[in-house]
């Protein structure tokens, strides 16, 4: 794996895990969501929710960037490493209990990620970048 692919995949995973973590923290403190759109808007008063949404936007951008040179069938399993980090963060910061089934699931995901990450990221022909569309 190229360092660029590894670093971008790591950024995709980190922004997703931290984004969901902040969002969940903020929504737990906020008033419960109702059918009214106003309750969704008022959730944005929480700085945790704002930070969470910002991180999820970053997640979307880094993932789109990664998809510009890596296959979908590569990106999907490799970024599933986020499930593992979420479980570890829950254990470390939220003192959640992780049972044997969860550890088994976590190990299966790690094995899947390891298997896919040694395959070449791109198997289709690289598109010729159209003029002016790549970053300068």
């Amino acid at each position, binding site marked *: 794996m190229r360092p660029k692919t590894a670093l971008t995949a790591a950024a995709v995973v980190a922004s997703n895990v931290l984004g969901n973590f902040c969002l969940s923290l903020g929504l737990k403190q906020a008033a419960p969501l109702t059918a009214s759109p106003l309750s969704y808007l008022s959730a944005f008063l929480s700085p945790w929710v704002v930070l969470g949404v910002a991180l999820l936007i970053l997640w979307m951008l880094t993932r789109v960037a990664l998809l510009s040179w890596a296959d*979908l*069938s590569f990106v999907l*399993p490799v970024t599933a490493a986020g499930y593992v980090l979420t479980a570890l963060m829950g254990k470390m910061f939220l003192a959640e209990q992780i049972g044997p089934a969860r550890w088994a699931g976590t190990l299966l995901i790690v*094995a899947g990620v390891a298997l*896919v990450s040694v395959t070449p990221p791109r198997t289709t022909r690289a598109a010729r970048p159209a003029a002016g569309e790549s970053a300068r």
Partner: protein
Amino acid sequence: MKWALVGVIVFSTIVSDLLQSYEMKRHGEIHFRRGGLPRVFGRLCLRWRLLLAVLFLALSFFAFMKLLTVADLTFAVPATAATYVFETVLARLLLKEQVSGRRWAGAGLVACGVAFLAL
């Protein structure tokens, strides 16, 4: 209700990912250089397939939140694991990616692992 929501989540996630991958393959590799990235991402906003992908992603996100109000997380998480298998099949068929034995095995392991998380 539960299964209808799962259907909406799985379907919209798949459509969103296929659209993103298809459009970004057409775009070609993004190069990280100082100062250029805001322009690149700004231009990406003009691509209708990516905008449609964001809409489907939002639909999937709100359907997931709705699902959490009518079902447990232990039901919601494994239900979304199905997308790994479906998307790998569709990446092979529609995006013409060469899915090697390792990738099939990896996607299968991840899907099983995600399903296990809910036990």
